[in-house]
Structure formats: structure tokens, C-alpha cells
């Protein structure tokens, strides 16, 4: 059996490893589109701060990891897929035949239609190559403008801030991290950033980036309200979308991501998809959506690989969840943090102390949560949501004090029935 995995991020690597484990005789080829060993994009910000070196971003640091498992790693970008001949053709012209193909190509950054983004010193922060370029320019005292204060933007922001740059952040939405934080939480993050001397503009957009030889900084970032902000470096973090362009004409259906069923099968036989490029099953809604997070990538990768190898595994769906450290302020979001119709909401906020906790219930079942300023035992929120635990008397206690979520979990899992 010939397995080809396209994409060397977490979904691809886990899939390749799982294929090896469950089908020892199969041939496994892992094709990565960048000239690097398989690495974790998530770790790039930590490389920028110097917390780890480049090797600290590698998904599998052990020497010979892939060779030892008989996984062939190829660094080449896939140009097209031909389902009729069951081959994958790379940009170098090589052709790889497959019996089963996994698409784990992740996503790539969106470049908004703003004049001047082709100037030197304007970068995405997506690849190791981007990171190297940013690290070179983002030195202490330099003016940096970051476009976008979404999830990825906030992570990058921290690493830029730690490098001591003069940082401005521009977000078109009315708050920071709008897709994982409500209005109140977003405002608290903004205030936190302001206290750290980060200049955050929300409900603002960049209309142009202009050369500005007079300085300071060689560029001027022009905002919709006419404000101009000096910049040596512009980092574009305005969002990503599933990397699927090379699939045009294959008949593989693409919506927000590659459409898959609960076995991670695409609409074309013997082709599967996993990770950030896949529109997989959503635990909370029962529908299908793109959940571009590490745990989902791993689950997708493993589920897809098992099905590719002929082991029937139905995927129950991923729970969207995020944890974010915005210059030291830690926030989490889980599932239906924005609530469900007819459900109850419990909130407690201490703005001065930067603590906020919000739980969303459907009946006496937890379906979503937001937290700000706490890190302890937050995983149990996942446990409670994904087990669909009936909270019983704890529902009311959590309505009164949502911070007692760990008490609820321990009581329900360890005490009941003892």
C-alpha cells in the first residue's frame, strides 16, 4: 500500500506515524512544502523571543526519527493532484503515485488588498523564513506595526514586544481576538496591552503603507482615520485560509476548507484531508468547520490515517479551544463560548485584577467557556464539555461562582459514586 501525505505539519506527521504503526508493511511518504525538517508553526513566536532555537520548533527533534520509522520525507511543494492516475506532482516535476492520499496542507496567510504591502520590510509571520526576516529587523527601539490582532497576531505581538520594539497593532474588528473573546474580554486584553505600552487600534484599518525616507522608520502606515504611524517593519497577521488552491480541477470539494466526512474522506475516493485545511466535524454543533488548532490537527491526522489503513474509525468531532498568552495575560476559550439559544450564562469579572470567567450552559451541561487571567486546571473545562457531563447541583453553584469549575469537575468525577 502506497501512502502519500502532503503537508509536514502536526496533522501530516501524526498521520504518517500512525500509518506506520497500523500498517507496518505500507510505504509512507511525507511531502513538506518548505525546505525545513517538519516543524511547528506554533513554536515560531518562541523562536523569535529566543526561548528556543530553530531546532526547538521541530516537531520531532530526535535524530533519524523519520528514517527509523521508514517514513520518506520529501521537501518539495505539491503542484497538483491527479485523482485519475492517483498521482501527486510536485513543483520540481517529480511524480508520486499513491493508493491513499492525505491532504494536510494547512493554511496560508491572507494578504489584504492594501497598497504598499509589497514594500521591503513588510512580512507575514508564518514560515521559519518569515521569522528569520522579522528577527533581523525587529530589534530594540525599532518601530513595528502589526496588522491584525487575532489569535496569531496576539502571539506574534508578545514576541515582538519582548524584543523591545515600539509596537502598534491595528485590528479591523471592534476588539482584540474577536474569534475567541467576547467584547468584555477583548477590552480587558486591550487595556492590558496599553499598560504595556503597546499602541492598540481597534475598529481601524490600514489603507496604505507608504515609503517615508524621512523616518523615523522608512515607512508610514496610513490608517482609515488618516493617522500615520512610523514603521521600520510591518507584520501582516490579518488571517489565514486553508491552502487548497492546488486542488482546483480535481473535483475535491472545498468550502471554508476541504470538505470531509466523519472518516476524514474528501469527496474524491482514496483522498483524505486533515488539520487546518480540512473542514471537519465540529463536536459542539454537529456540523463541519475548520478548527485550526493543534489538538484538532493531531486528532484529524490520527483518524484519517486509521481510516486510510482500513481501520474504521468515526470521528466524533473536535472541540474548538484556544489558549493565548498576550504579553503575559492568559486567556482561554472553549466550544460555544458565545452561548447557545436558551442556554444560561455565568460570568464573574474583576477588571482591576484582569480576571474574567464566563461559562455557557445548555441545560445543566457546560457547552462553552471563556477565561482571562487564570491557568489552573483549565483543561477540565474541556473534560466537562466533551463528556457532556450533567452538572446537577453544580450547575447552580457554577452560576453563582463560575471559578469553581475545577471543584465541580473533581466532585462529579471523583466523589459521586464513591
Amino acid at each position, binding site marked *: 500500500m502506497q501512502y502519500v501525505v502532503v503537508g509536514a505539519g502536526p496533522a501530516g506527521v*501524526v498521520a504518517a506515524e*500512525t500509518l506506520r*504503526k*497500523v500498517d507496518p508493511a505500507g510505504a509512507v511518504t511525507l511531502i513538506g512544502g518548505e525546505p525545513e525538517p517538519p516543524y*511547528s508553526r*506554533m*513554536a515560531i513566536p*518562541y523562536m523569535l523571543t529566543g*526561548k*528556543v532555537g530553530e531546532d*526547538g*520548533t*521541530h*516537531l*520531532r*527533534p*530526535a535524530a533519524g526519527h523519520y528514517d527509523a520509522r521508514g517514513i520518506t520525507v520529501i521537501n518539495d511543494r505539491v503542484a497538483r493532484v491527479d485523482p485519475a492516475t492517483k498521482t501527486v506532482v510536485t513543483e520540481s516535476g517529480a511524480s508520486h503515485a499513491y493508493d491513499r492520499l492525505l491532504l494536510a496542507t494547512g493554511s496560508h496567510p491572507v494578504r489584504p488588498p492594501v497598497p504598499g504591502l509589497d514594500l521591503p520590510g513588510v512580512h507575514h509571520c508564518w514560515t521559519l523564513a518569515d521569522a528569520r526576516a522579522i528577527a533581523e529587523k525587529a530589534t530594540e527601539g525599532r518601530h513595528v506595526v502589526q496588522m491584525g490582532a487575532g489569535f496569531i497576531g496576539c502571539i506574534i505581538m508578545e514576541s515582538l514586544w519582548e524584543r523591545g520594539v515600539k509596537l502598534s497593532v491595528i485590528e479591523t474588528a471592534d476588539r482584540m481576538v474577536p474569534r475567541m473573546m467576547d467584547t468584555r474580554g477583548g477590552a480587558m486584553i486591550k487595556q492590558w496591552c496599553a499598560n504595556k505600552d503597546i499602541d492598540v487600534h481597534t475598529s481601524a484599518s490600514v489603507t496604505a503603507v507608504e515609503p517615508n525616507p524621512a523616518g523615523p522608520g522608512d515607512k508610514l502606515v496610513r490608517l482609515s482615520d488618516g493617522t500615520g504611524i512610523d514603521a521600520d517593519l510591518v507584520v501582516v497577521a490579518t488571517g489565514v485560509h486553508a491552502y487548497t488552491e492546488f486542488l482546483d480541477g480535481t473535483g475535491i470539494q472545498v468550502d471554508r476548507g476541504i470538505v470531509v466526512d466523519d472518516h476524514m474522506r474528501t469527496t474524491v475516493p482514496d483522498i483524505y484531508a486533515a488539520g487546518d485545511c480540512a473542514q471537519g466535524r465540529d*463536536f459542539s454543533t454537529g456540523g463541519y468547520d475548520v478548527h485550526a*488548532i*493543534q*489538538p484538532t490537527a*493531531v*486528532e*484529524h491526522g*490520527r*483518524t484519517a490515517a*486509521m481510516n486510510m489503513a482500513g481501520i474504521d*474509525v*468515526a*470521528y*466524533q*468531532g473536535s*472541540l474548538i*479551544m*484556544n*489558549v493565548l*498568552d498576550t504579553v*503575559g495575560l*492568559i486567556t*482561554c476559550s*472553549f466550544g460555544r463560548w458565545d452561548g447557545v439559544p436558551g442556554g444560561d450564562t455565568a460570568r464573574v469579572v474583576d477588571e482591576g485584577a484582569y480576571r474574567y470567567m464566563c461559562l455557557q450552559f445548555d441545560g445543566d451541561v457546560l457547552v462553552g467557556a471563556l477565561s482571562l487571567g487564570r*491557568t*489552573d*486546571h*483549565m*483543561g*477540565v*473545562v*474541556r*473534560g466537562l464539555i*466533551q*463528556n457532556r457531563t450533567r452538572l446537577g447541583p453544580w450547575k447552580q453553584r457554577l452560576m453563582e461562582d463560575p471559578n469553581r469549575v*475545577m*471543584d465541580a469537575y*473533581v*466532585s462529579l*468525577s*471523583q*466523589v459521586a459514586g*464513591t
Partner: protein
Amino acid sequence: MQKSLHIDPGKCTGCLQCEMACSYDNEGAFNPSKSRIKVFAFHDEGRFVPYTCTQCDEAWCMQACPVDAISVDAATGAKVVSDARCVGCKVCTIACPFGTINYNADTGKVVKCDLCEGDPACATACPTDAITFIDANWTGLERMRAWAAKTDSGAQASA
């Protein structure tokens, strides 16, 4: 035979000797806030429940780690965090459905129970045998395992 921590909440008096022992072993100071085992007190019911990682087979934390910083200690079966590799991204802390891997802001790393290389300080310190370290098949971890299985999103059971 690998051993596991066995916890009997019925015997726990809530004294927190385990938390002190754990924190001393790992942090070099008596500091319950840094303990990897926590005793939860349910005042209204008169119950004390020590709680820590069960080293579950699913190893949610290990699976979720983007930089391979968590590995299995072959001798003890413990899932162990490598401080050298952990970047502090905290994804494991939300991925573990038991809430037993946590972020330490002082070090910028995550911490979890590592079974003290096979001689858990909490079990040694417990004055009432509420925490013991015994052969794994005696520990009755079925209850927690049942929870682990329920959280499973379908991909892990047979891999």
C-alpha cells in the same frame, strides 16, 4: 509491574502534607500553590479529594504538544515534561481533560506529576494512606479511565 498512584478520598483529612512534599521535591520550597497534586476540599460535604495526573494511556497532553516536549518515561510509565523543550504554549493545559497539567508563569513552562522517578513524595508524606503507590492493576483507575474514554473523540482508542 508498573506502579500507579492510588487515591482513596475517604482516608484523606485534607492536611496538605502531599502538596508540601510535592512542591518541595519539584520546586525546592514548601509551596502548595506549586504542587502537582492538589487536595480539593468540599467543605459542605466534609470531603477531601487529592487529585493529580493518572498518567492516562491517552496522554492528551503529550498528543497536544507541538514540540515533542512530553514523553513517556519507560521505567515508570509517567508522562514527563522536558523543560528544555517546552516552549510554554500551554496547549496541553487546555487539552488535558483532567486539568492535571498546568502552567507555571514563574518558569514559563508547564508542570505535571512525573511520579518522582518512581518514588512519589506525596505518597511517602501522606499520614493516612489516602495516597499510596501500588501495582497499577490494583489502583482501580477504572473510574478515571472511563472518563478518559468518554472524552475520546474517536481517534485514540485503538491507535
